[in-house]
């Protein structure tokens, strides 16, 4: 059996992550890596609907927050272990993705974008008034005592997040090259032509929103244990949504690797800027990068690389 370079990379990256936990590295690095990985999942998830299917979603933060709050509620009610919380968050957010998709996918372009933004506000209002999970005051989460064979809880969270990230990248890559992915690309290029070529556009778009929602829920599920205090203001932070859009745009939306590159690049730079300069400036930085890429290289880094390789290798 032929083992592709991609899967070798995935395994190597995972082993490298595991290895990192065996050295007594400054715990800050695990924090920083966790944030970057979380952003990567969000970017990959956003790109399934925004990049592959061509529907721009401004409501990413809502899916992320619902993932986090699903985790909080089930942890409080049943005390479920983290893997089950992640699965539950995926299911809940997938269903919300399906429902929201069904309600809003008849809208096109700008109207769809506005509808997703409105949805985020509606859900935020609901959570604000749900006192079981803390309402507007927020809620403290105790980090569980157990952290398997890892030295600390953050190391375990980091490995969990690494696994989830690698899985979502693998799913996105598989999707990109599949029959389903081609159907989604056809929808993005021309919805009517896709429909007339036999593509069941509504069903495929629903698959796309469901998958996007589930992945974002997965990204949000471990979040409460990472920050230990969650309130609607931080979970529904617009910056989460902006990042989820900016990263694929900067990396390139048409190819599966685009959001990964964008997230690793922008996420790392954000971390560096936060530590060395200021946490306020990093928002400005993302804004400037986004404007530059949208105007100068609308196909993102992947697009630039493709153009260059075409120029040199023909």
């Amino acid at each position, binding site marked *: 059996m032929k083992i592709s370079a991609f899967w070798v990379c995935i395994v190597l990256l995972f082993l490298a992550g595991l290895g990192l936990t065996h050295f007594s590295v400054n715990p800050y690095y695990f924090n920083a890596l966790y944030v970057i990985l979380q952003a990567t999942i969000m970017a990959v998830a956003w790109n399934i609907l925004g990049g592959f299917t061509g529907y721009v979603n401004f409501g990413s933060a809502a899916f992320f927050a619902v993932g986090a709050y699903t985790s909080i509620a089930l942890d409080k009610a049943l005390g479920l272990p983290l893997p089950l919380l992640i699965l539950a968050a995926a299911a809940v957010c997938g269903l919300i993705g399906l429902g929201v998709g069904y309600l809003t996918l008849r809208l096109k372009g700008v109207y769809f974008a506005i509808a997703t933004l409105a949805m985020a506000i509606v859900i935020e209002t609901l959570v604000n008034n749900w006192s079981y999970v803390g309402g507007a005051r927020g809620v403290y989460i105790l980090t569980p005592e157990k952290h398997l064979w890892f030295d600390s809880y953050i190391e375990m969270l980091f490995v969990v997040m690494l696994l989830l990230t690698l899985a979502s990248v693998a799913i996105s890559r598989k999707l990109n090259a599949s029959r389903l992915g081609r159907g989604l690309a*056809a929808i993005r290029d*021309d919805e009517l032509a896709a429909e007339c070529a036999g593509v*069941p556009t509504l069903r495929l778009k629903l698959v796309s929103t469901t998958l996007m929602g589930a992945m974002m829920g997965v990204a949000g599920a471990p979040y409460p244990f990472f920050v230990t205090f969650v309130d609607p203001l931080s979970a529904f932070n617009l910056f989460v949504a902006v990042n989820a859009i900016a990263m694929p745009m900067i990396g390139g939306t048409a190819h599966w690797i685009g959001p990964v590159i964008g997230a690793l690049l922008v996420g790392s730079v954000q971390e560096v800027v936060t530590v060395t300069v200021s946490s306020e400036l990093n928002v400005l930085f993302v804004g400037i990068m986004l404007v530059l890429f949208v105007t100068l290289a609308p196909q993102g880094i992947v697009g630039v690389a493709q153009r260059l390789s075409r120029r040199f290798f023909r």
Partner: protein
Amino acid sequence: MSQVILRVEGVTKRFGGFVAVQDVALHLTAGERLGLIGPNGSGKTTLINCISGALLNDEGRIEFEGRDVTRLPPHQRARLGVARTFQIPKPFRSMSVLENLRVPLEYAAWSRAEHRRITDEAMEILELIGLKHRAGTSSGDLTQVDMRKLELARALAAKPRLLVSDEAMAGLSSSEVDEILEILLALNRRGVAVIMIEHVMQAVMRFSQRVICLDAGRIICEGTPESIVRNPDVQRAYLGA
């Protein structure tokens, strides 16, 4: 061979108060070549939008191969065997020419395609259409005539029994018109019934076995190409007076 594959009965389509197509009835037998003509705004494209399902008609009934498809969405009609091209080409721009054909092969024709041979089947179609040398080209970079050919190739990749060609020749030179005409005739020889909407009259005359003329949303006459050009109603519709 005279089995009816498409039957349109009393189809009416309104846009607000404007009646674009009014009480149109037509039928098509398997393997037939039908020309659909009429001045601009006479409802030709609206009619084929109703036939392909891009628009739902307000009144009337559309049957394909004995099955009522009036309320079916376009992708289901495509699966049954109704394919169309667009007046303004709509290629999937992010894909290569070959990938453009994979979409209908993998969706509309999925039940009829040999799944392992999708690429081969796509190449065969490109060869027939004369686009084989462009297989790897990005579809957005094609010339106008090649884009029209791609429209036809993509429609053909859906393995249709009825092809509706919406002004595939508008704006092409006469040698290019001949090329497209040759392709349509080749498709028809494979047993595909064709409805051709066209303003290029010399092409309609050569291609059609039967011609229907629409004016202001109604069928004003129907007959052989020769009888149509002599028909006073048709002359009035086109020339005024």
